[in-house]
């Protein structure tokens, strides 16, 4: 056989579905399609059940009343809704300034020094720490030591635990967003005599606003749904919130507590809280998407 005479005498170019390679191709394409179907199926099943089971309980009282005592009917999840907002707000107030500040340091002051690399690696490790261990840490550091005015479980402790969880995301987002800002922009500012502080706060950070905002919104959405760090920091409360230094209810802990109770009223409230929580979180995700699209157009 030589190269000069092709082995395949002029054959048909036509598609032959019976060929082994074409049958294999079709088989694998069908498998991939099936896998994709299986992958998106849980989303539909979960959403449908949350919407049906939770949606039918939506009423004014859900948003205005306290949960009922075990064995009683009716009631609402008003305290848990407020609690989720309070705890998430506390977490954001801690994690956003710390995270953005840390990210500014990594991207603008020390992008390649050993200390920055050390912080980056540490940040990746912190992102991988299981959320329940964040809860254990804050319990040991804040709750067990009664750090805040002798109070043990508190909304503040819950907020701190969620902040520990949010921090790595905010730092990483800020670091990466700032590195995408063209250097010429900050050179321009420095070139006219602006200080580094002015350059960062007036030029660099605003130009990286969109990716940072997107990342922060996603981090908040994730924190709002977290339960593990809250169960022994913020704990739970069947009453209205009593300030930052007392235990506070949250929707996620309410779902956990009420799901495993043998009472139907509580189970239903767990579904209702899931409904509210899922709507809020999917809304935040769509908001983040919208910010991204809005900025890119």
């Amino acid at each position, binding site marked *: *056989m030589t*190269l*000069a005479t*092709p*082995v*395949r005498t002029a054959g*048909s*170019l036509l*598609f032959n579905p019976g060929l082994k390679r074409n049958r294999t191709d079709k088989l694998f394409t069908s498998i991939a399609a099936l896998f994709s179907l299986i992958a998106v199926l849980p989303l539909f099943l979960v959403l449908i059940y949350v919407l049906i089971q939770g949606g039918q309980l939506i009423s004014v009282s859900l948003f205005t009343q306290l949960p009922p005592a075990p064995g009683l009917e009716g009631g609402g999840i008003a305290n848990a809704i407020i609690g989720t907002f309070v705890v998430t707000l506390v977490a954001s107030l801690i994690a956003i300034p710390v995270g953005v500040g840390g990210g500014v340091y990594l991207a603008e002051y020390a992008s390649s020094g050993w200390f920055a690399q050390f912080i980056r690696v540490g940040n990746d490790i912190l992102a991988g720490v299981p959320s329940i261990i964040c809860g254990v840490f804050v319990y040991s550091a804040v709750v067990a030591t009664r750090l805040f005015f002798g109070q043990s479980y508190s909304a503040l402790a819950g907020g701190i635990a969620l902040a520990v969880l949010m921090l790595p995301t905010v730092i990483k987002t800020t670091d990466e967003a700032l590195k995408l800002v063209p250097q010429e922009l900050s050179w321009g500012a420095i070139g006219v005599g602006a200080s580094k502080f002015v350059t960062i706060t007036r030029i660099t950070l605003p130009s990286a606003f969109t990716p940072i905002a997107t990342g922060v919104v996603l981090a908040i959405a994730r924190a709002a749904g977290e339960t593990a760090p809250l169960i022994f920091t913020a704990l739970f409360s069947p009453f209205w919130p009593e300030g930052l230094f007392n235990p506070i209810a949250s929707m996620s802990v309410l779902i956990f507590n009420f799901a495993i109770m043998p009472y139907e009223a509580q189970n239903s409230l767990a579904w209702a809280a899931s409904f509210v929580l899922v709507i809020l979180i999917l809304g935040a995700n769509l908001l983040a998407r919208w910010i991204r699209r809005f900025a890119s157009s």
Partner: protein
Amino acid sequence: MTSTLNQPSTSATLPSCLSLENVTISYGSFEAVRDVYMDIPRNRVTAFIGPSGCGKSTVLRALNRMNDLIEGCSLRGRVVFDGQDMYAREVDPVEVRRRIGMVFQKPNPFPKSIYENIAFGARINGYKGDMDELVERSLRKAAIWDETKDKLKESGNALSGGQQQRLCIARAIAVEPEVILMDEPCSALDPISTLKIEEMMHELKKSFTIVIVTHNMQQAVRVSDYTAFFNAEAVDGGSGKVGYLVEFNDTERIFNAPVQQATQDYVTGRFG
């Protein structure tokens, strides 16, 4: 002066290998190249030359349905190979590409060993013979055997750019296609590698029909038997440019006595 535009350009004495019949290629609604008629002769080297954006690479990629990989790319007209329109609905593009190979502008060895880079294509084409022998023969044909014979197990990415491109040519040869398409194969290479590849092409045309796109007119003169000159013109009222085939003839005629003024201007460097 008779215009060659919109008329089949033939090299009457030679059997044609690929025929383009009124081919128009578009990306979405934007026409990249329009109304190409051309008969590419068998066992010869045909060069496509022309300014950037004239659609010569687009036409080349159309010759083995590589444009299928680009979303929104569509073709009107017929490309006849072996008596069949390769764009007919029931044609298998994989079948087309097994008989019409391609070498790309940027060397793209697979992330595998040098040996496997060659053997991969042969194996999927159902090669049953002695694989070691085929690898050696292909590497020899592509003038890269001496440089690689002691490191066949090493990654193809470890070679230099010029060596990678010759490896890619060896890879294309190994599946024994009837036609090899080369899309500016030397544009990323140094002069010495370029020279090696050009020398190799003189060898290869004994076995294969070669179609090469090149930016470099000296290269077209050195390697090709036939040359097609493409140009681009502004679309009426449109924003973009559309490419078309100006002239197709013996390389000697194109460079020494072209029929069209535009060709004359381009080959003498008076273009634009």
